[in-house]
C-alpha cells in the first residue's frame, strides 16, 4: 500500500481547498454583485478549466510553469528553483484546475442572499468589505461548504493535470490517483482497488466534518 502517495494526496487536497476558499470568495462576490463589461466573458474564462480535458490544461500549464513560461520564470527569479515537478507546482495546478468548483457554488449562495441584510449592514455603517466578512460570509455557510466539498474531492480525484505537471515523484508529486493509474496499467487490479478503497474513508471524514460545521451554522 502506497501510504506516501496517500499522504501527499491529503496534503494537496487540504492546501488546495484552503487556498481556493480564500481566492474564490472575492471573485464570487464580484460575479454575484457587480455588473461590468466583459463579466460573462470573465466568468466563462474562470469556468474554462472544467470544460477542457485535463491533458490540455496540463499541457498549457507545463508551458506557463516551465522555465520559459511566465509563472515559471517569475518563480525562478524569486526562488532560484523550478516550479514543475514540485509540490508547490502541483498545488498551483490543482488550484487552477479546481477554481470553477469553488467559484460557482459560492456565487450562487451570495446572489441568493436577502438584499435587506446588506442594506441593514450598510445603514449600520459597515463598509462593503466589512459587510462581506460579517454578513455575507456567515450567511452563505452552506454554499461555502458545498464549494469546499467539491474542491476537496475534486483535488483528490485530479489526475491528468497532476500527472503532467508533477512528473510522479514519490513523496513530492506522486499522489494516490497516479498510484492507482500505474497499478491499473501494470494490471495489478487488486492494488489499484486497495488504494481507491482507502480514498473513501478520507473523503468520508472530510464530508462529515464539513456537514457538521455546516449544521452548526445553519440558520
Amino acid at each position, binding site marked *: 500500500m502506497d501510504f506516501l502517495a496517500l499522504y501527499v494526496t491529503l496534503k494537496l487536497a487540504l492546501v488546495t481547498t484552503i487556498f481556493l476558499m480564500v481566492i474564490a470568495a472575492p471573485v464570487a462576490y464580484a460575479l454575484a454583485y457587480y455588473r461590468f463589461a466583459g463579466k460573462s466573458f470573465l466568468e466563462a474564462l474562470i469556468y474554462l478549466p472544467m470544460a477542457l480535458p485535463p491533458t490540455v490544461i496540463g499541457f498549457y500549464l507545463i508551458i506557463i510553469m*516551465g522555465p520559459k513560461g511566465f509563472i515559471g520564470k517569475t518563480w525562478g527569479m524569486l526562488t532560484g528553483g523550478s516550479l514543475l515537478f514540485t509540490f508547490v507546482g502541483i498545488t498551483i495546478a490543482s488550484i487552477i484546475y479546481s477554481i470553477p468548483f469553488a467559484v460557482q457554488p459560492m456565487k450562487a449562495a451570495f446572489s441568493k442572499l436577502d438584499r435587506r441584510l446588506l442594506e441593514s449592514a450598510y445603514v449600520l455603517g459597515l463598509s462593503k468589505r466589512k459587510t462581506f466578512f460579517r454578513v455575507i460570509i456567515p450567511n452563505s455557510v452552506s454554499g461555502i461548504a458545498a464549494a469546499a466539498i467539491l474542491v476537496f474531492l475534486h483535488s483528490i480525484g485530479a489526475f491528468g493535470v497532476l500527472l503532467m505537471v508533477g512528473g510522479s515523484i514519490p513523496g513530492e508529486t506522486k499522489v494516490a490517483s497516479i498510484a492507482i493509474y500505474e497499478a491499473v496499467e501494470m494490471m495489478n487490479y487488486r492494488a489499484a482497488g486497495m488504494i481507491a478503497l482507502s480514498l473513501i474513508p478520507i473523503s468520508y471524514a472530510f464530508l462529515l466534518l464539513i456537514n457538521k460545521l455546516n449544521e452548526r451554522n445553519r440558520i
Partner: protein
Amino acid sequence: FAGEKISVAVAANFISAFKEMAPDVKAKTKIKVEGTFSSTGNLYSQITNGAPYDLFLSADEERPAKLNKDGLAETPFVYARGQVVLWSANKDFCKAKTWQEALKKKPVKKIAVTNTQTSPYGAAAKKALEKAGMWDALQSKLVNGETIAQTFQYASTSAVDAGFCAMSATVSDEGKKGCFYVVREAPEIIQSACILKRTTNRAAVQKFIEFLNSPAAKEIKVKYGYR
C-alpha cells in the same frame, strides 16, 4: 467483399502510422479499417471485458501473450519494433559525442523517462542507463512521464532538458525542431499484435495483417520511426 469493416484497437504510440495505413488498405482491399486509440493497459481491460475489436496492436509483447494464454486471442506476432532515442528541444544538447556525455554536462538538470514499470520504452531506457552505470547517479534528475507521448511533451516544452523518447517522435513536426541521439544500448521495443477470437470477420482481418507485413506498410513504419 465490398463494404467490409474491421475494428482495430491501437496502442497510442502507433496512431500516426496506423492513420496513414488505413486509406491504403481501403484502396487496395476495399476493407474499411477503424481504429480505437488508447493506452495499451486501457485497451487490454476493454478487451477482457468484451470490447468488440477484431485485432489488437499492442505497444508491448506481454499483453497479447496474456490474452492468448487466457484464450481470448490467437498466437501473437510482431508488427513493429521501436527504438529509444534521447531527444532534446535544445540543439546545443547534441553537441557532445555520445548521449552519455551529453547527459553528464553541467546545465542538464532534469531528464524525462517514461514510467519504467508500465511502459516498455521506460524499461528499455532504464536498461540503457544501467548499462552505462548512470542510473543511480541520475536519480535526482529523473522525472517520470506516464506515457511515451507525455515524456516527449516534457522535452518539447523544455520542461526538462532531454527525454528518452521513441524514434517515432523524432519524425513528427514537433520532433524535427529538436535533436536526438539513438540510444543503441536500449533493447528494441517489440510491439506485437494478436487477432481476437471473438472476430466475426477473420478473412478481412487476415488481409489487413498481410498488408501490415507488406513492403508498402514497411515504408510507412520506417517513416514513422519503426522497424
